[in-house]
């Protein structure tokens, strides 16, 4: 009869932010790279915060191809991990109360990753959004696009295949 009232906004936000934090904060390489995440609902934007360490060609200067590859791979894995956790958390199957990097469910493993370099990476912040194109029981396929000044002008894109964790 009576419809359940929607949860208060701060409860919803805190639960989702805590889930993202558990995914991201436990990974040393993400902080080494200076990568952070913005969340709007279930949409994530990865941010590669510029530092001089990321340079690969000091003469231009340009971002290192390896730094760009790392950024895209981090963006893809976190998107997939968040996708996996989202349903569990929103359906209440998984509580965020004690969710820490140590208590997270097992995450997918990268099988392969192909990076397409479209333009020189400039010495400034970069952004990336990933899309899960296939979410199967065993395999997932994720595409990721990265840009700097202009969302329409990608400087790199990538596709990766991932092995999904065994489900109990």
């Amino acid at each position, binding site marked *: 009869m009576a419809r359940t009232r929607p949860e208060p906004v701060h409860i919803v936000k805190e639960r989702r932010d805590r889930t993202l934090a558990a995914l991201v904060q436990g990974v*040393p*390489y993400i902080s080494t790279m200076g990568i952070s995440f913005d969340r709007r609902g279930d949409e994530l934007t990865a941010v590669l915060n510029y530092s001089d360490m990321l340079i690969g060609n000091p003469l231009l200067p340009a971002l290192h191809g390896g730094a760009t590859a790392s950024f895209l791979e981090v963006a893809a894995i976190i998107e997939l991990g968040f996708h996996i956790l989202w349903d569990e958390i929103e359906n209440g199957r998984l509580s965020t109360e004690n969710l820490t990097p140590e208590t997270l469910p097992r995450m997918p493993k990268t099988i392969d990753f192909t990076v397409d370099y479209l333009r020189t990476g400039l010495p400034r912040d970069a952004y990336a959004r990933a899309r899960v194109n296939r979410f199967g029981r065993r395999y997932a396929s994720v595409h990721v696009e990265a840009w700097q000044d202009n969302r329409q002008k990608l400087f790199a894109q990538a596709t990766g295949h991932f092995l999904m964790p065994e489900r109990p």
Partner: protein
Amino acid sequence: MADNTNTDAQAAAAARNARQFIEAIPFSKALQMRLDEVGDGLAVISMPYSPALVGDPVTGVIHGGAVSALMDTCSGAAVMSHPQALSVTATLDLRIDYMRPATPGERITARAHCYHVTRSVAFIRAEAFDADEARPVAAATGAFTVARKA
């Protein structure tokens, strides 16, 4: 004979320049990469295990992205060391296959071979190993831009 000695000296000088160049790249330096061998389209670059590179805090395994960065650097070095290429290159495309997790604590070594160069593109193959040299951790294929010697 004299010519040979001269060529050897030139090759040694080129290798020394390549080493200084690679080790001066900020990102390679940050990941403590070391150029072990270079010349004639072949390059070997290694990187020590570091807690800063960990991708899975539970197992301590290095993040795939760090292995990609090593492969990219090593591939670029292989291209630059090719006799027909100039020492300027940029990655066009790089595909990495991850065969197994690298053993935590062990140094990772990448070997790249620039096996073909056209007027504008260099093609590479690369593999990465930890202490177990019989089982690669990852393999890569890629295409790089080339400025060819006149």
